[in-house]
């Protein structure tokens, strides 16, 4: 058997490899460092790794040159399995930035009496003396940092994968640590464990679909490689039923990850049950990575087959927006509410994904769908992580108070927190002068330009419903009389404070001067086809 040695291109990959290395190093630290120094070591290690990787992304981004056919910039690494191109790099940077915020939230210890938000001893049964002992011993799982780094690695691999196998591996590497993390809450452990269980079962289920879809596509095209699949689709080899079913199953797996209707069932439970820092990181990061993957798969591999998957996407987008917004209104738990709103946002982003147009149909300087979606992801990511960070501040004796009615009077209790949260909500509602508005504008524009006007109309109507939802919360915070002694706001350490501040700042800046980021997304440009 002849063997062709693949080129690994370590330089372009080193952000990826660095994150993975740091994750492994974290495990080594867990194994050998004494318990006393683990916390600080892990936090420093994780932050250093992420920042280093971020720098790496910038360097690589400056370094990459045009790919041979000239349409896109970047390279195909590791024998064509990983595409380091503009969108990949943009998403890497975004994920890393969000992950830094995540680490800061993970490391927060001031909110809950000097303890992090994670269980002292996950294996100890809740309510047993084993658990109380673990709490008394001031235990905490510092494994969360390596786990998170693995998840980040997956989030970076997922959108950069250039064949179905790598994409599947990325999907799993991103999911598995999150399953565990969402089960590690210190408070309300039963809820948390259930969340983990549901997330895991449904997640594994959906990844099964993804895999079978991949198998069928492989059967159709005879290769896992996106470019090959694209060729096959263009030349229309093989039976189109394989292609159709395969595409459907693949999209089931992917749409589950972004929590699109009808695959959103896990979202509220997991968002509510998981420890809030995890929720923040997961909500922001997973969506970014998964949408990167969705765009790559559907644009690069199945772009030629647009007309068969777009109708499905239309329906799913519309459903997601309406169901998400409508169900969100009925919620009385802030985390569930945000979860459903994230479902609605999935619908909006899908609207942008639908804006796919051949480059010759675009006017010079007109915004492309990739650009729009990337921008929306940026705005959404920061707003979400900020919002959940704020949620982790509002507490009472039993931990966080997530019941919305208990938030009444927050405007008087702590005007700053209330204002920041209201700001995030307005951003999600897409009020002008917040980043959310520009994001909506961008995705709607591309969708309309691509002729998906029914979706845009539906999106507009849905965002009216959604707006009502966010305003409802703002009204509670400002104009309702507090029940009982009203909510208390725990004073955060600099870590959470930084995260919230950065989130708010980004949300504001992107709302007022979105130009630079939009241009960056434009420079990120096209996928390597």
């Amino acid at each position, binding site marked *: *058997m*002849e*063997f062709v*040695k693949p080129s690994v291109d370590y330089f372009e990959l080193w952000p990826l490899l660095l994150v993975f290395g740091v994750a*492994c190093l974290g*495990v*080594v630290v*867990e*194994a*050998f460092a004494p318990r006393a120094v683990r916390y600080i070591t892990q936090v420093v290690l994780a932050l250093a790794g992420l920042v280093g990787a971020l720098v790496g992304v910038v360097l690589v981004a400056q370094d990459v040159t045009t790919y041979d056919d000239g349409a896109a910039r970047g390279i195909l690494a590791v024998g064509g399995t990983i595409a380091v191109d503009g969108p990949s790099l943009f998403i890497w940077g975004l994920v890393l930035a969000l992950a830094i915020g995540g680490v800061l939230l993970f490391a927060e210890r001031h909110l809950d009496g000097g303890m992090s938000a994670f269980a002292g001893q996950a*294996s100890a049964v809740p309510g047993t003396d084993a658990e109380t002992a673990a709490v008394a011993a001031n235990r905490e799982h510092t494994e969360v940092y390596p786990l998170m780094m693995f998840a980040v690695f997956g989030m970076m691999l997922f959108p950069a994968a250039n064949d179905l196998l790598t994409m599947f591996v990325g999907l799993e590497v991103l999911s598995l640590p999150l399953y565990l993390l969402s089960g590690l809450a210190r408070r309300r452990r039963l809820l948390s464990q259930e969340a983990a269980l549901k997330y895991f079962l449904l997640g594994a289920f959906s990844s099964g679909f993804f895999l079978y879809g991949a198998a069928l596509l492989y059967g159709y095209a005879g290769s896992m490689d996106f470019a090959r699949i694209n060729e096959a689709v263009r030349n229309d080899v093989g039976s189109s039923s394989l292609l159709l079913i395969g595409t459907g199953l693949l999209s089931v797996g992917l749409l589950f990850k972004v929590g699109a209707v009808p695959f959103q069932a896990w979202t509220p439970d997991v968002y509510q049950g998981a420890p809030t820092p995890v929720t923040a990181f997961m909500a922001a990061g997973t969506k970014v990575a998964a949408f990167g993957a969705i765009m790559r798969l559907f644009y690069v591999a199945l772009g030629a087959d647009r007309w068969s998957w777009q109708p499905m996407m239309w329906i799913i987008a519309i459903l997601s927006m309406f169901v998400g917004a409508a169900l969100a209104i009925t919620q009385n738990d802030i985390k569930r509410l945000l979860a459903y709103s994230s479902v609605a946002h999935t619908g909006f982003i899908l609207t942008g994904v639908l804006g796919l147009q051949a480059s010759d149909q675009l006017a010079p300087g007109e915004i492309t769908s990739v650009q729009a979606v990337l921008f929306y992801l940026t705005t959404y990511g920061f707003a979400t992580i900020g919002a959940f960070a704020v949620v982790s501040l509002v507490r009472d004796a039993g931990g966080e108070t997530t019941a919305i009615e208990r938030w009444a009077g927050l405007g008087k209790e702590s005007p700053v927190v209330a204002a920041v949260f209201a700001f995030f909500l307005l951003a999600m509602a897409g009020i002008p002068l917040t980043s959310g508005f520009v994001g909506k504008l961008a995705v709607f524009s591309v969708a309309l330009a691509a002729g998906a006007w029914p979706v845009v109309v539906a999106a507009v109507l849905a965002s009216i419903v959604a707006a009502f939802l966010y305003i409802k919360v703002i009204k509670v915070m400002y104009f309702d009389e507090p029940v009982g002694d009203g909510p208390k706001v725990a004073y955060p350490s600099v870590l959470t404070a930084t995260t919230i501040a950065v989130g708010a700042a980004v949300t504001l800046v992107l709302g007022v001067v979105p130009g630079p980021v939009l241009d960056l997304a434009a420079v990120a440009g096209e996928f390597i086809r």
Partner: protein
Amino acid sequence: MELYTPILVLAALATGFAVFSVVISAFTGPKRYNRAKLDSYECGIEPTPQPVGGGRFPVKYFITAMLFIVFDIEIIFLYPWAVHFEAMRLFGLVEMVLFIVTVFIAYAYVWRRGGLDWD
């Protein structure tokens, strides 16, 4: 598939023998009913009823099983690599060393956390 049919022949032979002896023992042996004899053996004391599903096991067995899976998977990758090693040479070696080291990190973690201790 020619290569595999002989195996089936042998397997059929063995199965036939096994089934035969299981069946035949029902007829050759005597049948003398005795309640105590049908109880599960508990050193003579009154046997304790088994909890449904065999009850709960020490978590150690679980951990062992998981470790086994991990290493079995590693072996899955080692075998083809070993067989085609001559083709890959240095590249293969380096990649495999990286792979082994990665697995080894997890192994070290388990070891240090007492996952391998049976006391």
